């Protein structure tokens, strides 16, 4: 009797211990997020405080990056990142949504069996491969038609980013479109609308919030992309882009290019660039959470 009891106690203790271990593991995600934020922000905000502080305004509004002369301006990088992302969204979202419409509403079964794996593969291709594609195909073509001497340009970045966000847009839009109840379509068709009218007037409006989430996720992916963009952006040390042919230096590539050898103030400034990027990503994340929660409430 006594032995049984002690065995039960032991078992209960063991159960509690394991539950504790599970809990600690579950907290690993939270701890990671906090650690990342603390470290990146601490290091990134450091140069703007204390003696010998760098003016935050000069940092955020400057259009020249010259670490050797202690000049750190990231405004032209912000402009590059935002323009590239906007361009990719403007081209990528319509193409992606129409592809999703094709898969969900119109495609014969055989076609779906080709397109869906293609999109999954597109989603899995490492970004360095997109970079190789950009460098070997997109940049030479642009060089031919561009008024500038080089092919590395905002346009090249937009084209590659468009391709990279397509899988995200297509697969999320597709599930949003599939989630629209059949009765919507039947009612619309029954009222005499054509199939195309039904899709654009009844189905897509109903799938609006899902498509919006897909778009926001696409923004996140585009603004955070580094390696593919680094090889095709040109990465100039100064100057706002004034046309789609001009070179850009997105925030991400600024970090990746100089981090391996930077030290001191320059390194801190790279972290500061990371902070700006992080703020953009946070806005994207929070928008996304708001959107999905709203969807859940419905």
């Amino acid at each position: 009797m006594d032995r049984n009891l002690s065995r039960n106690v032991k078992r209960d203790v063991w159960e509690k211990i394991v539950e504790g271990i599970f809990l600690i593991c579950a907290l690993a995600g939270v701890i990671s997020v906090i650690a990342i934020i603390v470290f990146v922000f601490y290091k990134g905000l450091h140069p703007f405080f204390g003696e010998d502080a760098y003016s935050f305004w000069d940092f955020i509004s400057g259009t020249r990056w010259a670490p050797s002369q202690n000049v750190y301006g990231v405004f032209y990088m912000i402009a590059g990142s935002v323009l590239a992302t906007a361009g990719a969204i403007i081209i990528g979202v319509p193409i992606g949504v129409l592809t999703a419409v094709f898969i969900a509403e119109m495609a014969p079964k055989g076609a779906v069996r080709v397109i869906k794996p293609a999109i999954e593969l597109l989603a899995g291709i490492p970004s360095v491969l997109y970079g190789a594609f950009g460098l070997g195909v997109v940049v030479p073509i642009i060089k031919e038609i561009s008024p500038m001497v080089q092919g590395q340009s905002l346009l090249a970045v937009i084209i590659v980013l468009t391709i990279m966000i397509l899988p995200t847009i297509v697969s999320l839009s597709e599930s949003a479109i599939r989630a629209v109840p059949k009765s919507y379509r039947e009612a619309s068709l029954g009222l005499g609308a054509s199939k195309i009218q039904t899709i654009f007037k009844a189905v897509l409006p109903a799938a609006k919030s899902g498509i919006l989430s897909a778009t926001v996720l696409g923004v996140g992916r585009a603004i955070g992309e580094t390696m593919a963009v680094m090889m095709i952006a040109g990465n100039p040390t100064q100057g706002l882009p004034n046309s789609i042919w001009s070179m850009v230096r997105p925030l991400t590539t600024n970090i990746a290019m100089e981090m391996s050898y930077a030290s001191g103030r320059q390194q801190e400034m790279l972290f500061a660039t990371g902070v700006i990027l992080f703020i953009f990503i946070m806005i994207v994340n929070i928008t996304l959470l708001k959107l999905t929660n709203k969807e859940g409430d419905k």
Partner: protein
Amino acid sequence: MSRKAKDNLVRGAIYGCAGFTVLILVVIIGFIVIKGLPGISIDFLTRDYEDKTTYISVDAAEQEQTSGQEEGYVSSIKAVIGLNDKGQAVITKLDEDSPLKEAKNTKNEAYPVSKKDIITKAGDLKIEGISSLSDAVSSLNGLSGNVKLKITRPGGGILPMVVTTLYMIGISLLISAPVGIFSAVYLIEYAKPGRLMSTIHFAIQNLAGIPSIIYGLFGSLFFVKVCRLQYSLLAGALTLSIILLPTIITTTEEALKAIPKTYRESSLGLGATKLQTINKVILPNAMPGILVALLLGIGRIVGESAALLLTAGTVAQIPQALFGNSASGATLTIKMYTLMKEENDLTTACAIGIVLLVIIIFINWASKAITKRLLKKGA
């Protein structure tokens, strides 16, 4: 415009967009394969990246007068040599009992010579710029007793990167798989809806949205500098582990959610404890889903570049330690990037690209096959 014409126009646009998406994939894969295929060979997959030059000592064999040997046969080392375009002696064939197989390097460790190694110096005699094969054979045949040879093993392969990638996959999964799976178990089996659970979910969703360059920044500061791991395998793997967490947690969560409630109830009803239920009933049933989670993780590791660039370095070598000076190493993806960016060698880069594509296609296929079997079983 009539309704019909308008409809057809839009229909055309839809077909065009779908076609465009597929076309893009074909163009990308086509480009990588066409550009990279000339670079793919057995040597490419199995060789070291850098040429490696070593001094070895060999006991030359007794001279025997043999006739009828093939051209280029050197009886002192019992091997057949040929000349390369620099007039150096390349070993093309080794006899079973060749003394070269017993060769020792300067540290007195065994260093067996293999085919395609190049002899550039024998004793004090430089073997370079020799124009006729018989000259090379006779000068090598003049050797006797214990001789020092300078041997160059040609590089140009990606073996170190393949090994580094495998190490990276192993170590990252060793860290993040248990943490991720336990974390999912806690969220599904233990946690009650409330503040804690929504905080954890919020954190995981945020982690999933952070771009890998930010992870790289964090890793290069925290793991490389603060933890003093330097650019190393471990620093890279730890950074990757955090990147993998959201993928592994959410995929495992889905697998756990798919297990019917009755399984749990009957196990608990039979007197099993919660832990026993998890261990004996829930995890075995969730195994295929967990496997998919790990496969997705491997895909992510293989494709990751920005974070590793800042934490594991770009040296083309097999890491000799987990952390510290000799522990840095480039994965396939990183090497592909440095080849393009620093060495302007798009052909070799695309050859690595083909290897990456094969891995990614395999992972896609495998995870789909597992999911399909799972669905069949469920139905």
